[in-house]
């Protein structure tokens, strides 16, 4: 039922917003803390590579952002471009997956072992 799907999307967007609020805060505080004495890319990678904790954190961050962004774009498409229906759903779903893949690739690059 489309009504139920709307309900699920609505809840998913709010739930991911809560996750993002926490993630953004942790990300910013960590960044400011980490670079207080100046920091190089090598130093960052030295701390993140092989870290399961940071890998999990940033994977959650990426997935939440992708879900939140895709649902938000769907609303923007409907309200500002009057683009609704299956084509809009498909396009925003593709954007969501693209964000997920691009984000997880970045996480893998920062967390994974040096090539």
């Amino acid at each position, binding site marked *: *039922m489309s009504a139920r799907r*709307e*309900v699920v999307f*609505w809840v998913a967007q709010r739930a991911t917003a809560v996750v993002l609020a926490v993630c953004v805060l942790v990300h910013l505080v960590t960044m400011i803390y980490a670079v207080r004495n100046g920091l190089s890319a090598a130093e960052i990678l030295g701390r993140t590579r092989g870290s399961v904790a940071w890998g999990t954190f940033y994977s959650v961050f990426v997935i939440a952002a992708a879900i939140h962004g895709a649902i938000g774009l769907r609303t923007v498409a409907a309200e500002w471009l009057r683009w*609704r229906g299956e084509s809009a759903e498909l396009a925003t779903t593709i954007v969501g997956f693209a964000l997920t893949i691009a984000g997880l690739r970045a996480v893998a690059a920062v967390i994974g072992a040096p090539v």
Partner: protein
Amino acid sequence: MNLRVSVWRGGSDGRFQSFEVPRQPSQTVLDAVTYIQRHLDATLSYRFACRVGMCGSCAMMVNGTPRWTCRTHVDKVAGEGALELAPLANMPVVKDLVADMDGFFDKWARARGEFVGKRTRADDFAVVDPASPERREADAGIECIGCGVCYAACDVVSWNPAFLGPAALNRAWTLVNDARDTAREVRLAAVAGDAGCHSCHTLMSCTEHCPKSLEPTRAISGLKRATWRLALTAADE
């Protein structure tokens, strides 16, 4: 001193026409419109009935803001001694200051705004505790006069013409909280979705402009929670 009143004339492709109306003490916007119709141009079309804020028929755009004109004093809104009057926004124009409210009220029906009971006249009265949380929620929204001010103020209606709007959703919420009503699930399904409560961005224009000081935004938030609970409990369907 005269009041300069600029009034929308014609249909959607019409234009504003200016009139000079004498200022009176305690003059309402509706008084000014009535003066024009009775003394300056008898062809002016507008709607009113009760003149005391009960019927909800005299709402229009006053200097770009939707208001009930019978209880809006000119002193309050005519800053420079000028008024601009137009038919309610987000509705088709019939003529002059008369907006077509068919779509607005059709949405009340689409939101299942009718009470569905199961008692007959042979049954005893239903006993509803006035202090119960549900009755308090219903009471908070029950005084809607259907004037369309909230609907004209709603940005989401202008973005999504299918959006049911604050008044219809407020009505649905009063019925969802009516212990006697039997159509709760059908109604919640009707108000969910792209045209329903989930499209609301919580901009609160409806609550800001409601002449009866109701809070449709609160009602819509209640519907969002109730539809989520229903989706959870009915997940195995």
